[in-house]
């Protein structure tokens, strides 16, 4: 029995939820960024699955763009993390709750 | 279990064993050629002309004590050489090394001399090259010593910088050959022009070949780009704290990466297994000769050229090689468009 579209979508939903839970639960900036990457990957999986079920390659093109944007966002996000760490010596987002720099 | 399946499993095993042997042979060749270049004898005691030297080396390495620094992360320390070695072997899985053969009629259909025939073979090689960075960076980090960390960071930064030029050189080949499958590209290089000039891609893409070889040498951390593991600079770079079999795995990974880069260069640029005077079923002899020539060139370069300093190395990779490879790609694409493929 081959996996159906619903199987892939369900798997993608599970991964997306895990990513969201990671963003809310974790108290480490880098792990929060990693959880965002998990979410983006879940969305990629959805796109490719749908693209396959419609028989076009558009899903893969969109994934190509999502990956590019994810790379750019990871780079800038990590640069921000480095700048924040240099200032406050901590990666806990709770240390940055006050607007005072 | 059809005969073809048995043959394929046998082929996989054969490739694995041959890669291990090639690493051993490279150990001997490196030391002997280095010695001859430096006008000394090299290994000559063990076996006739020192030919059993690699066996002696392996035995020595196996009997050494396996050290692990106390502050090292145990899981990552053990994982890093495994990643390096696995990536090195895996990259060779998509490299074809001979024409389809039926082993003199034993098989019903011809067996492609390639462990895995994927139609995106070039991309797979590139992907595995980018995974081999992890072995080095984890080795440097998990050893928890300054020389290792510096060596690991520098080495991995070097590898990811030269990956770009590597990929663009591959892309130029793709534009000319119109296929991502290595077997197609090799078969495209059969025959000759004017009767004596072989239709190798190196004649259509000389700059691409140079860029590929330079980036390949930098990717495998060999001279003149071996600053991160140079003895005079960083003790031994990222594999300072490793001993015995883990060190042997790093060494193995380095030599097999060299073999893979040479094999891919042979397939892409030098015509693979096509050559005169031999029937196509014996083409693997030509393949071996060409790969051997490139490997000899590798060793020759190591013992002849001085080493690049790290900042020179990085600036060369980004400011010279990358623009050159982009220009090469543009010119190639324009040429293909103009001459109609």
């Amino acid at each position, binding site marked *: 029995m081959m996996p159906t579209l619903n199987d892939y979508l369900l798997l993608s939903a599970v991964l997306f939820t895990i990513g969201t839970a990671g963003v809310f639960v974790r108290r480490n900036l880098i792990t929060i*960024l990693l959880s965002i990457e998990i979410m983006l990957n879940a969305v990629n999986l959805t796109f490719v699955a749908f693209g396959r079920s419609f028989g076009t390659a558009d899903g893969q093109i969109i994934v190509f763009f999502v990956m590019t944007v994810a790379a750019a966002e990871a780079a800038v996000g990590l640069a921000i993390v480095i700048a924040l760490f240099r200032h406050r010596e901590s990666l806990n987002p709770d240390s940055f709750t006050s607007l005072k720099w | 279990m059809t005969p073809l399946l048995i043959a394929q499993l046998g082929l996989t095993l054969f490739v694995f064993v041959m890669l291990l042997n090639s690493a051993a042979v490279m150990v001997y060749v490196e030391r002997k050629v280095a010695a001859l270049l430096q006008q000394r004898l090299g290994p000559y005691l063990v076996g006739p002309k020192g030919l059993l030297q690699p066996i002696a080396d392996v035995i020595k390495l196996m009997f050494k004590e396996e050290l692990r620094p106390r502050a090292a992360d145990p899981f990552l320390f053990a994982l890093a050489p495994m990643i390096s070695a696995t990536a090195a072997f895996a990259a060779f899985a998509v490299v074809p090394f001979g024409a389809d053969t039926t082993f003199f009629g034993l098989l019903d259909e011809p067996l492609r001399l390639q462990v895995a025939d994927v139609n995106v073979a070039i991309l797979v090689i590139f992907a595995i090259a980018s995974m081999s960075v992890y072995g080095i960076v984890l080795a440097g980090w998990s050893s928890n010593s300054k020389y290792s960390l510096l060596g690991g960071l520098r080495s991995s930064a070097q590898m990811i910088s030269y990956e770009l030029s590597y990929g663009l050189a591959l892309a130029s080949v793709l534009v000319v050959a119109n296929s991502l499958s290595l077997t197609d590209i090799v078969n495209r290089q059969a025959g000759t022009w004017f009767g004596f000039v072989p239709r190798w891609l190196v004649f259509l893409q000389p700059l691409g070949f140079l860029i590929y070889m330079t980036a390949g040498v930098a990717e495998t951390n060999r001279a003149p780009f071996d600053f991160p593991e140079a003895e005079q600079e960083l003790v031994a770079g990222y594999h300072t704290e490793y001993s015995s079999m883990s060190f042997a795995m790093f060494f193995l990974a380095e030599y097999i990466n060299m073999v893979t880069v040479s094999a891919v260069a042979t397939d892409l640029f030098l015509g693979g297994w096509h050559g005169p005077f031999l029937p196509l079923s014996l083409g693997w002899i030509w393949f071996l000769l060409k790969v051997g020539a490139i490997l000899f060139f590798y060793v020759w370069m190591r013992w002849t050229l001085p080493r690049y300093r790290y900042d020179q190395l990085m600036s060369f990779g980004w400011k010279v090689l990358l623009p050159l490879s982009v220009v090469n790609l543009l010119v190639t694409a324009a040429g293909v468009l103009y001459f109609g493929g």
Partner: protein
Amino acid sequence: MTLFYLFGAIAVVASLLVIAQRNPMYSVLLLILSFGALSGLYVLLEAPFVAVIQIIVYAGAIMVLFLFVVMLLNEPKEDTEEARLRLVVAPGAAQMGAILAVALIGELGWALTRTGGQSGAFPAGAVTSVAAIGRLLFNDYSFPFEVTSILILVAMVGAVVLARRESRRSDGA
């Protein structure tokens, strides 16, 4: 089907461990494992180009970036006592969170699997060739393609500026 379950299980378990691990280095490595499993799923979905690009870009480049930053910042483990305390700041908060997470999965699953009459099975199709993707990319999607190049340039410049040390900047600059 077994391959789907295998890759899916690896992806889910690795992602769970990513958010449960305390050591950020292990989190990064587990995420690489998860990406590898996703790449396998893409191959099952007959998208070899995306599978290889996933390894090259995500597992091979973005994760190396994460690894470098983790090594640079070198915060060994996060303060788990603090984290645990914050999780149970309200009584039953963790349990409520877990229930809501399961509810989210349920809702997403229900929304995504409503087929509206179709069976949901994939049509028999060939592997999308890289040439077809290239043609689509440069014909129909050429504008987003050019815009992403500007995006990457902006991100590169931004990252360099953001991560620069402040002390080297003079007051007049």
